[in-house]
């Protein structure tokens, strides 16, 4: 991947402009607010579970195109997955799904939603 992929990425552009699963869940099981300390970007992530299965995931981002697009792609990939499958999703998987070579600062943008999901899983299942 070259740097030009970032400015020409249609996936990124499309997910940023029309993010999937954008919004809030009324009656969510877990709500996480996660902030990227390098830029103050914020995500509010809601999740709803049926047993071990993630039946709904929604989010609001206040951030750059990468953080929004990454949350959108992640939400599509995780919807309907089990707790175990989500826990076994790695940062590398998330970055591979975005398909861009990112520097360390932008990687944090891409992973803010992932961090929120993992924190949400921990919080939700710890309570049980």
């Amino acid at each position: 991947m070259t740097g030009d992929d970032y400015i020409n990425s249609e996936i990124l552009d499309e997910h940023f402009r029309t993010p999937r699963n954008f919004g809030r869940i009324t009656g969510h099981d877990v709500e996480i607010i996660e902030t990227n300390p390098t830029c103050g970007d914020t995500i509010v992530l809601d999740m709803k579970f049926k047993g071990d299965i993630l039946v709904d995931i929604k989010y609001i981002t206040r951030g750059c195109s990468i953080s929004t697009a990454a949350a959108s792609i992640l939400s599509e990939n995780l919807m309907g997955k089990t707790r175990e499958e989500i826990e076994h999703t790695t940062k590398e998987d998330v970055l591979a799904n975005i398909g861009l070579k990112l520097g360390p600062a932008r990687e944090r943008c891409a992973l803010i939603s992932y961090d929120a999901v993992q924190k949400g899983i921990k919080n939700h299942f710890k309570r049980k």
Partner: protein
Amino acid sequence: MKFDEVREHFPIFKKLDAEGIVYLDSASTTQKPFEVINAVTDFYENHCSNVHRGVYRLGEEATEMFNHSRENIGKFIGAKDREIVFVRNTTEALNLLSYSLGSTLKEGDEIILSNSEHHSNIVPWQMLRERKKVRLKFVNSRHDRPISPEDLSPLISSNTKIVSLTECSNILGNINDIRPISKIAHDAGAVMIVDGAQSVPHMPVNVKDMDCDFLAFSGHKMLGPSGIGCLYGKEEALEELPPFMGGGEMIRTVTKENFSCEDIPIKFEAGTPNIEGAIGFSAAVDFLRNLGMSSVRNHEKELIAYTLKKEEESNIEDLISYGTRNIEKRAGIYAFNIGEIPKFDKEHISSENVSVKIHAIHPHDLSSLADRTYGVELRSGHHCAMPMTEDLGVSATTRASYYVYNTREDVDKLFEAIKASIRRFGF
């Protein structure tokens, strides 16, 4: 040395020019001239030894070079060598003060800061508040004008013990006139601390003229190596201050029961110092002195004036910039946004894709695009000044900052890059 010759002294520009990269992040850290690089390698190749210890030749050479560096850096700001404490950076200098000076405060004592401070001049005082139950008060100044003595006066009380302000904001570029502020602080019996991280590198600074008690600054922001900075303190103020870290170097005697301190400034320098850093820092000071600090200031004043003119001429829709437009009070720092993405409000979470709705380009996207399109390297985010970013009502800004090696062509490229980024985002 003339300004059109400056770039030839910086080896990195061979590479950057060949790759078409324009470095506009000198408020974060600066590039290094070969005079500094050579001073550091010369120490390693010819004089490497510890200081203040060996009575052998190499040790004496290293000590002499280290002492000369202190004296040279002191002269640069109008201070005696005894008044210069070597630290890692501005942050460490301010932490030193928050511990040592802070230990002399009591519950209810007040410290005045401003909303345009770097986190390094906020967090150490907040940590002190946890320990000593002191009160922090903030000058909440507008982004488009420097802090004035009138802003400070209403906050002064009989409990004011410290006023700690930046001489130049790292996000707005506003230059604060410290002398009248020092007077107010001193009249109230308070200590005046100045964060000089963005002023000492860019303009003539004289501690006697501004009449501060302490001044903190970093080597890496003024052509020197990273990991070396200075805390200036008035001789009598330093003598009264309790030590900071304990260990080797800073002691005179140690018994199983107790210790006594070395004289200032060594009293504050526990452990082997950053010797090569100090020597490189001193070489950086020589380089700047050779250029002349008034000339450095004029060069940057011209660049920021040109930037503001380009901004007006460019008529870029949604371009909003921050900081005073009085160039006499403005350093070479230009923070801006393309559409303002409002700060996140936990109480009123909007369920809209705000950036898309208001056609804003997030600073992270803008700086990535500026880099990829025109090789223009900008900083984006809160610039370690979250309180000011919050007071601007935005989640982040993009910042260009200039130094001795930047040119008008660099400013031209900045605006080309901004336009190219907007075309790419194409709302």
